[in-house]
């Protein structure tokens, strides 16, 4: 099955892409997807980010389904100065 992975801010720049279609096995969890992604992007190993699945914060244990949109969410910094 296929999931879409979206990268933002420093991860978008780091990976050089805003999104990527990734082929994974049925029942893959978020953690397993991240492990697979980190082969191509070692910085994804540091885990200084959260994960959203279909625009909602998710746990590492969450199993994915075909067509899911998975987003790498670095610590947010909207609004005015920190």
């Amino acid at each position, binding site marked *: 099955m296929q999931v879409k992975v979206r990268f933002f801010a420093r991860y978008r720049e780091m990976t050089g892409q805003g999104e990527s279609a990734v082929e994974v096995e049925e029942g893959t969890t978020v953690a397993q997807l991240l492990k697979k992604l980190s082969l191509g992007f070692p910085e994804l190993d540091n885990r200084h980010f959260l994960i959203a699945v279909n625009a909602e914060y*998710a746990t590492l244990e969450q199993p994915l389904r075909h067509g899911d949109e998975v987003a790498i969410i670095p*610590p947010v910094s909207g609004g005015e100065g920190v």
Partner: protein
Amino acid sequence: MFKVTEAPLDPQPIVQGVLKESHGAVVTFLGVVRGWSGGRRVLYMEYEAYKEMAEKKLVEIGQEIRQRWQVEDVALYHRVGRLEVGVTSLVVVVAAPHRGEAFAACHYAVDRLKEIVPIWKKEVFEDGGVWVEGEPMLEEK
């Protein structure tokens, strides 16, 4: 009333959009791009959002405020893209019968936005840009 947009933000129509006859107090927060960060001159800021999720989280903040203060008239607008110094990046408006809940709810909305809404900013200096990262959330949801 809950929007992530590339367009300039004008507080006045946003205030008019939440104001009702029962309100005596309107508190508005404007987040503005600062010209200085850590003693360094800022050229401009780049704001980036995960738009679909960010707008969903803005709506959630509105719901939290309704539950906590019974305040319903809240607007949260965040601008994204390249924003120059002095430009408004964030407008939060809370209108309520009295000032106590209007101040509390508006302050809460800004704090909460900086915790859960997937928007990021890059400060751009003469010698390059730096993505600002807030506090990592302590626990995952």
